[in-house]
């Protein structure tokens, strides 16, 4: 047990910290989301620079253009990025979900065709899993993937798809048969977002911005070389995608929470330094942040030893989302009436935006209810609730 950086991690962290100070574009400091075209343009360039400096695909095998480093480097990378309030690589879906899935299940020609461009941010990916009728119950997706001639024809609708409005490719889970059991009729495809019949409609969210989208597929032709895994074997491939989502995800969350707690401490010092109730709640959030941080380190140690993310990933997501909701609400309370003002660059508008955005945290990437089910059933071994 040693909670300090080893010499190599320490050197990596120091180099990265200095690099971030010199390289994060001014327009992306204090980053809040990819909803404006100007931010996306900066983001493409920023992602290219991250890749050129060797910070894209840190844990990917070297043979696929990655750095082949242990997971701890990805953890340091996420901590430092959050510390600098710099955005992640624009291609996070490609780097964290599509890429590892292609590495695990793809054919050599698919690896050659897709992986390098994910790293370099030349191609941005999005995820087509959720549907209007299939949220938490993912295996009930109804988008049709019909084998026709030398390929497939896709018809259906996907929803809550981040990055779809700027994406070049989509990992899509659809249904290729109707007769079989629900998990066995699924097929996993890579879809070119420029294909005829693909229509993306941004969804305006509670904050007024549009970070995610609906995607409509109408008779979209997909060549057979875009099949990942087997026809009817899509569920297993999708599970790889989702397990990678949880690997070091917690570090990005704790990093973001660290920034939020620092800002909250600053706000409380300025505006409510002597209020005993506020002081108690700020201390609670600080303790929760430390608990999350060290739970991540325990998860990391397990991941490095076993190669498989443990249940701590669900714990981190569940607690982070609830902490972020509490914390942003506390900030709004400290600010008081002024927090009704929605525009400007000051603290009121910042915290109002964060507070409204935080309502999505307990829903996106696994609702809190599903995460509690996962913990109850897979960790505690309680009987299934359905």
């Amino acid at each position, binding site marked *: *047990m*040693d*909670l*300090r*950086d*080893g010499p190599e*991690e320490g050197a990596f962290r120091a180099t990265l910290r200095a690099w971030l100070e010199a390289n994060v574009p001014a327009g992306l400091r204090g980053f809040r989301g990819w909803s404006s075209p100007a931010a996306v343009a900066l983001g493409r360039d920023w992602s290219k620079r991250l890749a050129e400096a060797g910070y894209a695909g840190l844990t990917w095998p070297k043979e696929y253009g990655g750095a082949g480093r242990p997971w*701890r480097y990805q*953890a*340091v990378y996420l901590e430092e990025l959050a510390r600098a309030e710099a955005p992640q690589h624009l291609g996070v879906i490609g780097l964290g979900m599509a890429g590892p899935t292609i590495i695990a299940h793809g054919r050599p020609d698919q690896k050659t065709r897709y992986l390098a461009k994910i790293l370099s941010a030349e191609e941005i990916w999005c995820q087509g899993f959720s549907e209007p009728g299939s949220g938490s119950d993912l295996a009930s997706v109804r988008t049709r993937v019909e084998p026709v001639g030398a390929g497939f024809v896709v018809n259906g609708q996907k929803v809550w798809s981040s990055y779809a409005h700027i994406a070049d490719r989509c990992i899509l889970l659809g249904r290729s048969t109707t007769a079989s059991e629900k998990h066995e009729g699924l097929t996993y495809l890579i879809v070119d977002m420029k294909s005829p019949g693909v229509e993306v409609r941004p969804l305006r969210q509670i904050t007024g911005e549009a970070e995610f989208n609906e995607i409509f597929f109408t008779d979209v032709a997909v060549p057979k070389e875009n099949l990942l895994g087997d026809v009817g074997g899509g569920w297993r491939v999708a599970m790889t995608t989702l397990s990678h989502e949880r690997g070091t995800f917690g570090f990005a969350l704790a990093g973001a929470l660290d920034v939020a707690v620092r800002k909250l*401490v600053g706000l*409380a*010092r300025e505006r409510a*330094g*002597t209020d*005993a109730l506020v*002081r*108690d709640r*700020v*201390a*609670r959030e*600080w*303790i*929760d942040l*430390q*608990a*999350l*941080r*060290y*739970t991540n*380190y*325990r998860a*990391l*140690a*397990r991941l490095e*030893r076993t190669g498989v993310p443990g249940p*701590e990933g669900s*714990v981190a997501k*569940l*607690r982070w989302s609830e902490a972020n909701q509490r914390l942003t609400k506390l900030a709004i309370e400290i600010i008081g009436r002024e927090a009704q003002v929605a525009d400007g660059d000051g603290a009121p508008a910042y915290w109002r935006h964060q507070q409204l955005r935080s309502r999505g945290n307990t829903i996106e990437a696994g609702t809190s*209810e599903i995460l*509690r*089910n996962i*913990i*109850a*059933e897979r*960790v*505690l*071994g*309680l*009987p*299934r*609730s359905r």
Partner: protein
Amino acid sequence: MDFSFSPEQDQLRAQARSFLEKSYPLARLAEIATSEDGWDRASWAELARLGWTGASIPEAQGGAGLSFVEEAIVFEELGRALYAGPFFSTVALALPALACAPDLLAKVASGAFTATLASGTAVQALGAGDRWRLRGETDLVADAGSVDAFVVQARGPDGIGLYLAERHGTRPQVCVLDTVDVSRRLGRVTFADDDARLLAAPPAAAKIIAATRRRALTALALEAVGVASQALALGVEHAKSREQFGRPIGAYQAVSHKLADTYVETELARSLAYWAAWCIAEDDGQAELAAVAAKAYAAEAAVAACERAIQVHGGMGFTWDHPLHRYYKRALWIESFDRSGAAHRADIAQVLLGG
């Protein structure tokens, strides 16, 4: 960066758990708690033989020369078993002061000596040089009736020092109080010019007192994690086997989500407690803050874990015969130790916000 236990440390935990499950199963809790001593005195030699009492004592004094991380493992497992002997008192509360006297360390390592801490400001140390007498009273002293000696925080001519008063017959006078957690009995100790030995004079004593507090808070955070884990295990077991409306009650989310919340809080408490333990072992600058945060969080998590487990057990959880109330009472005592969670958080706010 490696937040995992070594294979040797994992082995120590496995050994501790299997020994405690065999010697102190849940079925024996009531019998031990109602015995006259309130603990199994024969167990102490066994704990010493296993190397637990001397885990962090240097090898020159007959210890194992290990660190607080190894002791942390033992504290957590003893909490899980609700062990009733003076291990917390001797190893967490008394050991830092006893380190001033190598002869005493050797006796702790060999299992020949137990002690606890009698703190407070009401005891006076009278005398000089190596002849001291103690006068005054301290209350709610952990394991007061079980130990061989008291490490006493007392006010001497130059300020607060640390003294050792050994028990001989009826002196100093100990009155074991009727307190809530009978698995860790508390007592009033009255010193009436009892002989004492100076362990640390001011200002050195202040450093030892601060280090002792950090150890004690962290040890109790670890105990609380053990308590919460056992409460969770009991709740899960019951939710799997108890059937109502034709299904195990654990299939209902109103029940399973409560237990999931206990799991989450227990894991977060565990992370904080291990962090604090590592800080103490390494004498890290954050040790104080980590110990306070871990104790504040873990104590509340353990109380909540027991309350949820009692609820999941229904009427059974409310009965005297079920072991849960014993865990609950330990958790409540831990919560009350030193300062409340709110007071600990006020200390943390002081660091964060000043004022």
